[in-house]
């Protein structure tokens, strides 16, 4: 019996590993044409679905052609659904007789993903810590239970609802306060922050609650104030759990699709201010996957691969950090 159980546990563990590896290989294979075509330049190239003349060595200097191509595609990228047709048509649209090809660069969604996540973290972290401290240490038991329950419910709301709420109620407020567009990096980041906030607060509260009473009492018994106990005993004691909650939230924010799709504007354009609209990787995938083909499809897989590696790196870093701290 024990043998069977051991085998089962072992094969489950291996299965997880195989799935991970399988996902990686699938993504990599599907992304290969784009990787071969664009290489690492993909990461720093802001152009998406842009026609350029077939590269002769000096073609890069021919700014006027590329420039007009940019403005041309820009108009159409606003309506993201046109994407697929657009790339299918590209050969026919070719008016001047120079042969062209379409290039794809991932910089815009990459920037959108990273910055919306950073805004979300910057917004959610202090508030989540405040809520957690309130629930774990300050609020009377009844209130803590009630508010804590409400916060856990908030964490269970599907993200699309956050997206709709954000679009109709939050976006106008953000635009009124900070200027700029209603749908923007900032709006997406803030609503993303609201989304991860309950999750972060709940886990932080739980890890703060693991601080043994006797340890807190020891600090109070030396004449510590509540603030000092929180700062010097509870936070250091639950540090690992708190950082864990931040990293898990980070992982959530990186991959969040629906809420961001409503709010980020979904245009392939580098934002100059945080109040500008742009796009993130998951939104780019969700919006364009249906219609993409050929190199466009492969580039989407390239984006997915980048997102996968990013999330994986974040989690691995977290694990590594914790293991080192724990020793």
């Amino acid at each position, binding site marked *: 019996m024990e043998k069977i159980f051991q085998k089962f546990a072992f094969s489950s563990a291996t299965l997880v590993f195989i799935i991970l590896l399988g996902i990686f290989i699938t993504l990599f294979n599907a992304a290969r044409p784009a990787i071969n075509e664009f290489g690492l330049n993909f990461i720093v190239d802001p152009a998406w679905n842009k026609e350029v003349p077939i590269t002769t060595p000096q073609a890069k200097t021919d700014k006027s052609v590329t420039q007009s191509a940019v403005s041309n595609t820009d108009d159409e990228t606003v309506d993201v659904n046109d994407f697929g047709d657009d790339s299918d048509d590209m050969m026919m649209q070719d008016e001047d007789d120079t042969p062209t090809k379409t290039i794809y660069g991932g910089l815009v969604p990459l920037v959108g993903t990273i910055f919306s996540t950073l805004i979300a973290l910057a917004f959610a972290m202090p508030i989540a810590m405040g809520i957690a401290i309130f629930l774990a240490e300050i609020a009377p038991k009844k209130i803590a239970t009630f508010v804590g329950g409400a916060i856990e419910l908030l964490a269970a709301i599907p993200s699309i609802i956050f997206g709709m709420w954000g679009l109709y109620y939050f976006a106008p407020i953000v635009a009124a306060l900070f200027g700029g567009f209603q749908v923007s990096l900032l709006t997406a980041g803030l609503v993303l922050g609201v989304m991860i906030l309950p999750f972060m607060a709940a886990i932080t509260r739980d890890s703060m609650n693991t601080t043994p009473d006797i340890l807190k009492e020891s600090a109070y018994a030396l004449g*510590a104030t509540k603030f000092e106990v929180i700062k010097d005993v509870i936070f250091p004691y639950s540090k690992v759990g708190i950082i864990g909650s931040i990293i898990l939230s980070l992982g959530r924010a990186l991959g969040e699709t629906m809420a961001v799709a409503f709010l980020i504007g979904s245009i392939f354009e580098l934002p100059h201010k945080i109040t500008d609209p742009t796009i993130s990787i998951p939104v780019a995938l969700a919006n364009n996957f249906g219609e993409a083909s050929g190199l466009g499809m492969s580039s989407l897989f390239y984006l997915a691969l980048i997102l996968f590696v990013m999330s994986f790196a974040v989690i691995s870093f977290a694990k590594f950090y914790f293991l080192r701290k724990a020793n």
Partner: protein
Amino acid sequence: MPVMNIKKFSFTYPGVSDPSLKNITLPIKKNKITALIGPSGCGKSTLLRSMNRIHDLYPGNKYEGKIDLLDFESGKYKNILDIKKENEFIKLRQQVGMIFQKPTPFPMSIFDNVAYGLKIDGIKNKSELSDRVEAALKGSALWSEVSDRLGKSAMGLSGGQQQRLCIARAVAVKPEVLLFDEPTSALDPISTAAIEELIVELRNDISIAIVTHNMQQASRISDYTAFMYLGDLVEYDKTENIFLNPKEKRTEDYITGRFG
């Protein structure tokens, strides 16, 4: 002369109808060790935790009677049950320190653990801090074992060392009274012996109240013993009288192991 005088003291936990301590009158004498003994659940911890009002971290307790504490500076007694403000609580807990059943090192270095009470009291001067940390560690018979690794985490010490560290941490703030709640219950016999020896040492500077379920420990180290039963103080006397010549039948039954 008593440093603390508990008078007609009753204590009731929130949500409980009957008091857990009933009409306790007991002195804690200066530079003496007073042991609190009695069967589990008789209220020893409850009484000890009233003496620095650590109970008040949790709301809704009911106190009756008086607990007078001698203030060494003014030479006057003050009823600690009157305390309401946070700064008065802080002062009380600096005067009346506490050691718990399990070692409770803070998640910081050995030095920072011992310096903690001093730092939160506003002492910033580096050399004063290190002098007082050294003195406290020496006074707790720990200096020779940790002097070469003061910067290392306190979590790496053995259980017995951790408990002596907690004593050093409490001693560093120079309390008048130290309360020990079964301080050796989680330790092996050798560490226990070291702690007992240390407590006897400390008596020269600090008055001590110690809860113990170990009657040998009470008889070995204490000067006075209070026997408690079901929230009552049954008998209080010099330790030798309690153990050799108890006046109450219940005390005798407990001492001779007939119950509890």
